[in-house]
């Protein structure tokens, strides 16, 4: 059978168990107080909990404050171009089933310049985990309106207050066909870690929107969802499918129209898993194509397959 040769040592010592020190790379260049620090800490914790081997971690990002993430993780990583991290991660995920592929990025990167890619990766159900660090503003470029900026937000490009209807991330993601869609808050570390862990375990395209405050350009943006700042952090009660008396009232995460309805709730809305279904991944579909094609050519080597192709053109 013709397949790609992989050279690797017969036996490799298990990597030392990962701790925060082994996982830390550069000290983050984020502003003190930036919500993204907590996202990083939470990611470290989950990667350790799940026991992911060091060499199998691959973080990929576009451009933005949040997209600098890969520099702060000591793992294989890519700092790519603005908005295109998802299609690059597509190539990594599809051709390397041995890896754990994580994409990190901002609201501008994901919903604006990269919006089309998000749509298609969700629809194709690529096997990777995507964390959107949503701060409702363009941080790196210093305070322009972002696709999630609320109407009225005063930015350098809308000094009189943003006018355009913002993207509703949960609605967009559920409607696009993502198979795991969750929402959390960078100030709620345990909840955030729980969402990450479930997203990583989910087979397919899993997205977590993290409300991660930009303390410089949109201070206080997420206070309404932070009990420590006088807000509320209302969780989605998920159906347990048991006989408990109130279970019928809880959210069925496999119900698309209910998930959309939940996404329509007024600010600050609810937190937790909005939608979670299993659907064949593109990764599995491509592997099935390979398996079928290889079954047809039997034990032929790649040279024999190509020689046959040429023989047809004689």
């Amino acid at each position, binding site marked *: 059978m013709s397949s*790609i040769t*992989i050279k690797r040592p017969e036996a490799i010592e298990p990597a030392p168990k990962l701790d925060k020190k082994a996982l830390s790379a550069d000290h983050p260049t984020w502003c003190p107080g930036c919500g993204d620090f907590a996202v990083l800490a939470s990611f470290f914790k989950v990667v350790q909990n799940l026991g992911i081997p060091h060499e199998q971690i691959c973080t990929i990002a576009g451009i933005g404050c949040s997209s600098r993430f890969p520099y702060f993780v*000591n793992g*294989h990583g890519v700092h790519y171009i603005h908005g295109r991290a998802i299609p690059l991660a597509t*190539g990594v995920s*599809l051709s390397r089933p041995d890896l754990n592929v994580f994409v990190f990025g901002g609201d501008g990167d994901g919903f604006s310049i990269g919006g089309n890619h998000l749509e298609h990766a969700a629809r194709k159900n690529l096997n990777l985990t995507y964390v959107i660090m949503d701060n409702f503003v363009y941080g790196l470029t210093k305070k322009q309106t972002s696709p999630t900026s609320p109407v009225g937000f005063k930015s350098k490009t809308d000094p009189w207050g943003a006018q355009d209807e913002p993207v509703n991330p949960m609605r967009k993601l559920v409607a696009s066909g993502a198979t795991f869609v969750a929402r959390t808050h960078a100030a709620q570390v345990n909840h955030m870690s729980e969402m990450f862990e479930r997203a990583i375990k989910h087979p397919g395209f899993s997205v977590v929107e993290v409300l991660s405050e930009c303390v410089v350009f949109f201070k206080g943006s997420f206070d309404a969802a932070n009990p420590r700042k006088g807000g509320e952090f209302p969780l989605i009660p998920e159906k347990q499918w048991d006989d408990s008396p109130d279970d019928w009232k809880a959210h069925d995460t496999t119900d698309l129209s209910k998930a959309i309805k939940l996404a329509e709730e007024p600010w600050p809305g609810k937190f937790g898993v909005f939608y979670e279904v299993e659907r064949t991944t593109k990764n599995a579909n491509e592997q099935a194509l390979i398996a079928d094609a*290889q079954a047809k050519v039997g034990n032929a080597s*790649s040279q024999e397959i190509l020689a046959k192709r040429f023989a047809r053109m*004689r």
Partner: protein
Amino acid sequence: MSTAAPSSPSEPRVSGRHSVRSKTVDDAVIRIAGNSQDGIQTIGGLLARLAGRTDQDVITYMTIPSTISGGPSIFQVRIGSGEILSPGDQADFLVAFYEHSYKSHIGFLREGGICLYDSDEVKPDTSDKRFVYVPVPLTSATVEAVGGTAKDRGKNMFALGLLCSVFDLDRERLVEIISRQFGSKDESILRNALLAFDAGYAYPLGDILDLAFQLKPATASGKTRVATDGNTAMALGLIAGGVRHGAGYPITPWSPIMEQLRVELPQYGGMFIQSEDELAAISTALGFSYAGHLAVTGSAGPGLSLKMEALSWATMAEIPLIVINVQRGGPSTGLPTSVEQSDLMQAIYGSHGDCPRVVLAPKDVEDCFYIAIEAARIARKYSVPVIILSDQALSSRIEAFTEPDLAKVMVEPVLDLNPAPAEYKPYPLNAETRHAPPGTRMTGGTYPVVTGLEHDEMGHPTSNPDLHMKMTARRRNKLRRLEAELKTPEVYGDANGEILLVGWGSTYGPIREAVTQLREQGLKLAAIHLRHLHPMAPGLEKVFDRYDHIFVVEMNDEGVYGQGQLATLLRSRFCNPKIRSICKTDGLTFKIREIIAGIDDFIAVTA
């Protein structure tokens, strides 16, 4: 005769009419003009394959309407026993299916040429005595032969039968090739095809058979030959070069490459992904390459423009990649189904920043195969993006060539996941780039982040001015090392003389033919062909010194300053005022006489 063939409805005919032919010719140009839905491409392809099988040389040329519903279309085949380098300036034989086919193409027929037309459709002006007219009721005779309402379907095969008879082609082999082409389909399709073919073959043509010419038999090469188009050769070359992954977005004339790779690659354990747009396509291809699987993406001009930002990243991050650009007429949507060579500057300089990358161009269909292998080798060796500039004419025309020796050229890809040593540096200042693909254990404990930011030897971002200069030089010097590997191309023709023609890409054939013709007329001249456009092979200045005038022949505009794109590059490189341009932008391949006229114009002005 193949036993698969149904018995011919006609009476048996005397085989081999060599004796009655008044003359033999080296080659013949046959133009078949109809509508795209008539299947004229199919018969053109069959003729080309026959030529390959009989050791004849062949070049085809076709036009496709850019409208979806089809429309006027031609397929031209030039078959001969010598070296065939261009589709031909004029036709010896025209088959006209419709009035519009006759009207548009009679002017392409040479004086004394034969116009065979469908007398059910065409009313030619027979008072024009320059041509010989042969009426054949293609439509009704096909209906009669095949029966039923299949008239539009079998006409092409009927015409092929006629051509087989007129040119006394190897009928047995042709039937075999037809059977193979239609064999996998519904049985009745093959039956009808052969019925129409036989009827055409048996159709009484009278004395034109005496007028017609006999192709000189080709000398047997003893080698197995194949016939295919440039896009197919390119796709197969990528596979031979060890490329197993890719991503693309459809656009004419690139789509057939991605369609074939999508189907072929899974057999080899690889995959080709149809992306949502060209930005995603190149990004996914870069994802494959980053993951350790050298990948391909491709497009035509508009899509190449969309890939420019990512290409710049590939240069900076030093990720190997192959980008195929099948050039067509531009700017913008331009002339989607016509040929042009106007993306050279975009290929070399299109991205932002100092962004060195390799640019290659194949000279003919066979070379599409070999250049893809070379592109893969260069991309791997230097961790650099390589752009291959093909064009619309190469992409769709069929040529016959010696079947490649796969044992010699085949490259087996390897994904190396051996642990990286503690002293690993991805971008050493004094050695070639080496990546540790994800999945690699880093013995030293530090894992690499591949970035588009300027970085140090470890890949760590830095804006240190000194390092930016060093790293910029490092990326450029990879191309200088490649340049040092290249050999000065040989000239074709006189070793020194009055004129040197310089070409790149698909103008190879017509330029060479122009040289042959002009040398026969006593001019001392030669041609040189550049397959490597960035970097160029060394030593060109010495070759240029041996000629009085240098003409760069290319299918693009002469620009504001009077030079085409390659001529501009050569002038800036060599500061040589002898370098001039012969350019054109009519969306058609160069005719020999156009090249000669370009030289004559110059001589007339300077005389």
